[in-house]
């Protein structure tokens, strides 16, 4: 997973999804309008209503590794998915795909995610495993750290391959951290001294440390997905409750 600050301004098209409609209704209408059968099946699986308490929501932590920072030009080299609930992160059912991107691997990205040309060379194109990936995701609310990356890259890859984009609800653990740490009011004392409130880092590793979660080796799609899954459980344990409706967290 790449860091948001490195990313270009958010792609307006990718943001349009949530719209006015609630997610279940949105999925129902997309299931009608989507042209690709795999996409239709994904939407047809539906999603939970926005009042569903978190403890009843089937969740799926996700992370993608990419060839670079540009969602338009760069491609996906790996996808990690870890199914979870508030009670259990089912690492035993994790899935991981190494993919052959349609752009060459840049040397600097290889040093980040560690996936090499030779691994990629024998890997399938996303199109070949799309049915499997979407079937794994179907019916789950996705959990990511920094939603824009997953959404934009996934969307870009799909538009290139099937000429359609994809939308789905996401709980963003980075955004949950930002809610806590980026909206704090300046204290009177800070104001008087002209000080800005201290900005805590909301990067994955830094956020995890605040919840006493262990240090993981970053930039492996499966590890990062697991890291986000654990972070969400920690955030809910400390700041929400199993009864919190999913609408408070997803977007």
């Amino acid at each position, binding site marked *: 997973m790449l860091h948001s600050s490195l990313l270009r301004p958010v792609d307006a098209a990718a943001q349009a999804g949530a719209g006015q409609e609630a997610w279940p209704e949105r999925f129902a209408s997309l299931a009608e309008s989507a042209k690709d059968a795999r996409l239709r099946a994904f939407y047809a699986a539906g999603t939970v209503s926005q009042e569903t308490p978190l403890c009843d929501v089937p969740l799926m932590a996700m992370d993608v590794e990419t060839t670079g920072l540009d969602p338009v030009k760069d491609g996906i080299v790996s996808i990690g998915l870890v199914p979870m609930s508030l*009670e*259990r*992160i*089912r*690492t*035993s059912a*994790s*899935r*991981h*795909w*190494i993919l052959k991107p349609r752009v060459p691997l840049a040397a600097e990205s290889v040093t980040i995610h560690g996936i090499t040309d030779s691994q990629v060379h024998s890997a399938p194109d996303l199109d070949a495993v799309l049915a499997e990936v979407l079937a794994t995701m179907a019916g789950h609310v996705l959990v990511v750290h920094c939603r824009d990356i997953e959404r934009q890259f996934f969307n870009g890859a799909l538009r290139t391959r099937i000429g359609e984009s994809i939308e789905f609800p996401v709980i963003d653990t980075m955004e949950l951290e930002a809610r806590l740490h980026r909206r704090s009011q300046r204290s009177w004392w800070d104001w008087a001294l002209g000080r800005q409130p201290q900005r805590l880092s909301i990067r994955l590793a830094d956020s995890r440390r605040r*919840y*006493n*979660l*262990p240090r*993981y*080796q970053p930039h*492996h799609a*499966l*590890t990062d997905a*697991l890291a986000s*899954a*654990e972070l969400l*459980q*920690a955030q809910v*344990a*400390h700041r929400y409750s199993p009864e919190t409706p999913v609408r408070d967290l997803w977007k």
Partner: protein
Amino acid sequence: MSELQMQDEQLEVLQFLTRQALFGQLPEEALRRVAAAVDVRYFKAGSPVIAFGEQAEWWFVVRSGAVEVFRRDGTLYNRLTEGGHFGEAGLLLKKKKVRFPVSALEDTLLYLIPEAEFTALFDAHEGFADQVETEDSTRLRQVMSRREESNQLMSASIESLVNREPVWLPSTAKVLEAAQCMTEAGVSSLLILDDARGEDDPAIAGIITDRDLRTRVLAGGLSHDTPVSQVMTTQLVTVEHNQLVFEAMLQMLRHNVHHLPVMRHQKAVGVIALSDVVHYESRNSLFVVSSIFRQSSVEELAALTADVRASFVRMVNEDASSRMVGTAMALIGRSFKQQLLALAEAKLGPPPVPYCFLALGSMARNEQLVVTDQDNALVLDNRFDPALHDAYFKELAAFVSDGLAQCGYTYCSGGIMATNTQWRQPLKVWERYFSEWIEQPTAGTLLSANIFFDLDGVWGKIEWAEKLRALIAQKAKGQSRFLASMARNALLRTPPLGFFKDFVVEADGRHSKAINLKRRGTAPMADLIRVHALAVGSQAQNSFERLKDVVAAGVLPPGRGQDLHDTLEFISTVRIRNQANDLAAGLEPDNSIEPDKLSAFERKSLRDAFLILSEAQGYLKFRYQPGRSV
């Protein structure tokens, strides 16, 4: 495993498990299987993880954070950090119900391993099963037996040194024949046959050694024709085949002989020579003892302190058992006392009436280390008249006590020293003391009298010490009020629960930075064993010896004797090693240990030892409760 599945594995999980000693010993394939089966869950500090009686579905490994494990009655059982595991007790039950409730002490990430996967591992991998086995005593036994195997040489019995039958010669043989026979057989000693018994049932009339040929025959100007019976040694010092090599060495020292016939069922099965024994014991501790007896002033004796400490460190480095170290240090301490008494008598003249100098406490039990105070007393002849004689004995006691202090044996803070009039009394008074302690016990008086129940005569009429021991053994047995009081005192010092991070955890959950291994470990062990020993009428002084008598008397539940043996040995070993490390680092040794100085293995085994001690104290309390007949 297919290519695709390999790709799905969680590297962080696998790598974490690989780093743990418990999993590190599994074959790689099994390790990958477990890693692939792991699920994960986060628990906020203070939240319950599993509750008593609920269905046991998982085996848990702590990935980060810390948890507390409780007993069913709500008391703390253990605290675990990264790498710790729990839940096995419930999974090993037929009903698979949680036995020990657990809650998160800190924000904690747990790995969950499904019951089926745990059971498969437990059944297929014996080493793994042994490690997670819940019985503290089983685990400690494995540790101790591995240790015993590793220092087999040091604790070898004398029999293992005997590699040939003894070479015999009839008593009518000439010394020339003896010399020829020794040369031919390549031995440095011969046993001389008791002619009355004959060769079928040989008995020893004496022994002749190459030293005898030199000192008694050649230097004495005797002819080659002299019969061996004329120059042989007839006052034989022998050892039993099953004694320790170490004990043979002590015999040689004590009697200044270099050869010992080894006996089994009253028959000689071989002879061991000093050279055979030298390999088994540090030359240094031998040297210290013999040099003590060569010193002619207190100052010279005091100068040996450094040698004493060096010999202690050497024994520890050679992996000697706690019993060997304890015996060697007690022997050294006893030798200091003996030499000081010899010097005192030389200075003050012969004693006006006979006396016996007593060693008490750890020295009497042969469980002395380098950090020790002097506990001693004087038993005087019944004809003792204070007006006439006490000035002498007062001066004698002061001389010895001051001398010991100069040699590194600090004064007893409780005043248990012969310099104290109360502890410098005729035999009949001592007999009255013991009778009163045993027949009219109060917990208060016994608390200070405890130490007198470990006693050993070191000088003078040492048979009086034996007499007192016999009196104690005979009177104490069956005295339920006395035993109940002794038991109550033995429970005043309890072991801690275990360790958590760099702290010692007490049973009530409190933390401390260090633990006194004597006060919280070996001393309560010795106290506990003493009560049982008194109850069964044992006259042994050493805790291991007492334990043997206690087991033989059938007082303990089956298997508990071995557990207590292992526990005492392990705690003593850690205590000894800690003191040796302090000495090697140039620090003043003490009995205090900071948990960060312990290896993970020592922490775990010490915890097992503490649990066994704690349980044994519970049993002691039950067995000797007031009013229960014993």
